[in-house]
């Protein structure tokens, strides 16, 4: 098995990157690949900013006393971290960059069904991001990313409405991405690309898109209601006007729990691709992995109230939501078991994307299993609003989504840029991310279980050792995240030239030059085989 990616002597003469020049050719492009790169750039900015706020939060928590920031400013720090990371990084990260770039190619289409709406979605993202950033920088926001009422509507003295407007706008960018993907998958598949020949990455994005379409509008209208309550004194959630603050939580989590799956499903799609490619084996249980994505999408809408076990709900409602939440473990476990079975007797090689994939499986396992702790009503009451929760969702979001995002980014980097990233540096950073991540968040499970609440800027002295560990881990993690920014940027110019199919992998996106031409394929491909057939040598590329 090749352990070195296959290089090439020359780049293709004409490809999507050099098809046109100048800033206008980028800002007005309707090529899904260029829009993906625009998204890549902007979510990287969001990630860096959100990360900077995390650094400030960890800095404050280095010592038990509240010494770096005032309590109020600390509230603004973690709110900014949450808002930026959730709405402007995690949700668009994989779908709008990797998904945008790959989805049309994987099904043999020339572009998404609505290229101009795709560009519009990027502009909505940017406008929403700028409005929210404006709100965060001028005056700030201190409600937490969850905007709980009645604090957000009746008491908070910060920029709730402006931040809400920004999130509202960017929500439509997410809706439009999902909308575009659904229509593209239904109507734009190449001849022979039947539903069950589609790569699992596409299935995962289909399920994600369903959630984006059906969940996001609910949070959009909820934000409008919060804004109307603040601006015009409408009384939806304010108890002094007959409203019910718990109703806000129901509406909010009706979207925001499924939103977690908007973040993790595309990551699972990436992992399915990576595990098969680097095991040189057809994925085990294709149908089950594909259907488990849909099952997760459906279940995602039935479990929201497990965020509210202590908010004031009847015991029976809590029991039902608890039971439904346990059900999510089934499709998630189906995926993990099938990935593991794919590895079995595969010819596994350990390039960087595979390191990230293995990291994902391990960390997602911990994140997922602690999710079961939290789905149990009794245990959840003990750890609600403690660092246990913080550790749990970071294991899923960072250990899951970001690991997969970075793995996917390395895997498809040669396709996007035509050049290979430096393998040694990439492995170093993958190991740093893994070690740094665990050092940061493993102590937080213990802290939470011992009773350290989240969102406080000071804590009792006995928690300091674990907090210092966590902050130290965050520094390692930060280095691990910064490295790729430098070496990937370096590789765009100086990296070795990649062949069309460096790994070599199956999938239509590898059967076109790297980087691909503007309309993806020199000739519309015809599909005559199932996905992931690694028993045959990779197909020759039809260059004419």
């Amino acid at each position: 098995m090749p352990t070195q990616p296959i290089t090439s002597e020359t780049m293709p003469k004409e490809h999507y990157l050099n098809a046109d020049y100048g800033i206008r050719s980028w800002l007005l492009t309707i090529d899904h690949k260029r829009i993906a790169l625009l998204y890549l750039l902007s979510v990287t900015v969001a990630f860096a900013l959100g990360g900077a706020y995390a650094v400030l939060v960890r800095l404050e928590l280095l010592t038990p006393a509240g010494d770096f920031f005032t309590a109020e400013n600390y509230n603004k720090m973690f709110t900014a971290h949450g808002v930026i990371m959730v709405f402007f990084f995690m949700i668009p990260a994989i779908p709008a960059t990797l998904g945008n770039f790959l989805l049309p190619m994987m099904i043999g289409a020339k572009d998404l069904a609505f290229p101009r709406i795709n560009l519009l979605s990027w502009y909505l993202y940017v406008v929403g991001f700028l409005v929210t950033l404006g709100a965060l920088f001028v005056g700030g926001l201190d409600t937490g990313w969850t905007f709980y009422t009645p604090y957000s509507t009746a008491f908070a003295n910060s920029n709730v409405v402006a931040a809400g407007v920004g999130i509202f706008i960017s929500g439509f960018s997410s809706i439009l991405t999902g909308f575009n993907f659904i229509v593209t998958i239904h109507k734009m598949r190449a001849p022979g690309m039947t539903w069950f020949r589609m790569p699992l990455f596409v299935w995962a994005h289909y399920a994600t898109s369903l959630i984006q379409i059906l969940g996001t509008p609910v949070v959009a209208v909820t934000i409008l209601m919060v804004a109307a309550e603040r601006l015009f004194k409408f009384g939806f959630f304010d108890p002094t006007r007959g409203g019910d603050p718990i109703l806000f939580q129901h509406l909010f989590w009706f979207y925001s729990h499924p939103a977690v799956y908007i973040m993790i499903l595309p990551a699972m799609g990436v992992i399915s691709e990576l595990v098969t490619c680097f095991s040189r084996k057809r994925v085990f249980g294709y149908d089950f992995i594909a259907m488990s994505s849909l099952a997760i999408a459906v279940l995602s809408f039935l479990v929201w109230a497990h965020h509210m076990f202590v908010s004031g709900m009847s015991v029976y409602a809590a029991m039902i939501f608890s039971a439904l939440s346990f059900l999510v473990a089934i499709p998630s476990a189906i995926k993990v078991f099938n990935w593991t079975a794919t590895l079995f007797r595969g010819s596994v090689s350990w390039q960087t994307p595979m390191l990230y994939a293995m990291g994902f499986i391990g960390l997602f396992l911990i994140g997922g299993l602690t999710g079961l702790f939290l789905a149990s009503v009794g245990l959840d009451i003990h750890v609600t609003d403690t660092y246990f929760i913080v550790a749990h969702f970071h294991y899923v979001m960072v250990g899951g989504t970001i690991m997969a995002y970075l793995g996917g980014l390395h895997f498809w980097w040669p396709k996007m840029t035509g050049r290979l990233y430096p393998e040694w540096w990439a492995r170093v950073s993958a190991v740093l991310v893994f070690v740094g991540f665990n050092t940061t968040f493993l102590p937080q499970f213990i802290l939470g279980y011992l009773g350290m609440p989240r969102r406080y800027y000071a804590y009792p002295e006995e928690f300091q050792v674990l907090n210092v560990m966590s902050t130290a881990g965050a520094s390692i993690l930060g280095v691990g995240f910064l490295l790729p920014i430098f070496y990937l940027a370096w590789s765009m110019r100086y990296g070795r030239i990649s062949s069309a199919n460096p790994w070599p992998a199956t999938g239509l996106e590898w059967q076109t030059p790297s980087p691909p031409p503007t309309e993806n394929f020199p000739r519309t491909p015809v599909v005559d085989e199932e996905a992931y057939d690694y028993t045959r040598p990779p197909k020759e590329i039809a260059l004419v």
Partner: protein
Amino acid sequence: MSDAHAGPLRHHFATLQQQKESATLGMWVFIAQEIMFFGGLFGTYAIYRYLYYAAFEDASHHLDWKLGAINTGVLICSSLTMALAVHAAAVGKGKQIAAWIAATILLGSIFLGVKVVEYKEKFDHHLVPGPKFHYVPHAEAARAADPEIDRHSQIYFSLYFMMTGLHALHMIIGIPLLAWMGWRGWRGEFSALYHSPIEITGLYWHFVDIVWIFLFPLLYLIGHH
């Protein structure tokens, strides 16, 4: 590589049929999104109506059901003229498309005009939620049925303005869209083969009408039985 914009077929589609199916499916997916958008409000409505039924019933009498009924009729007629515009497009008569769309726009504007009259009347009677909200029960017994009717009726009017306001906003977005389609129809851009923009604009308009069909009884007719 195919040439960019040769006729109505866009560069990334293989056939007009594929393009048309994509546009239609796209509008349906968009409508699914819209249903969830209004769904959040309908859900809120359902909960508060269940909790504060007496207040909602009494507050409902402050709306003018006759104006609401007229508006329902107006919107149903506008759906008819929209359907006729789509039919005109299907048989390839450009001037007729423009005429039917003009009628649709006229009816839509009448609807919005009536809405303005209704809003102004609520404003004059201090029924707009907020500091100036002042509620006078319609029925004598209402305050006995719900001692907190001042607060609970305010939720009713919050929902009334939010739901009808967002519905009106959808119409305000729809009318320029219609005008653009009418203009393109007048210029002869559509034919029996290619008229999916008219069709999907029609889908959107019908959807907005249907939202009103639900809003009218839920807001205007509580207790009118």
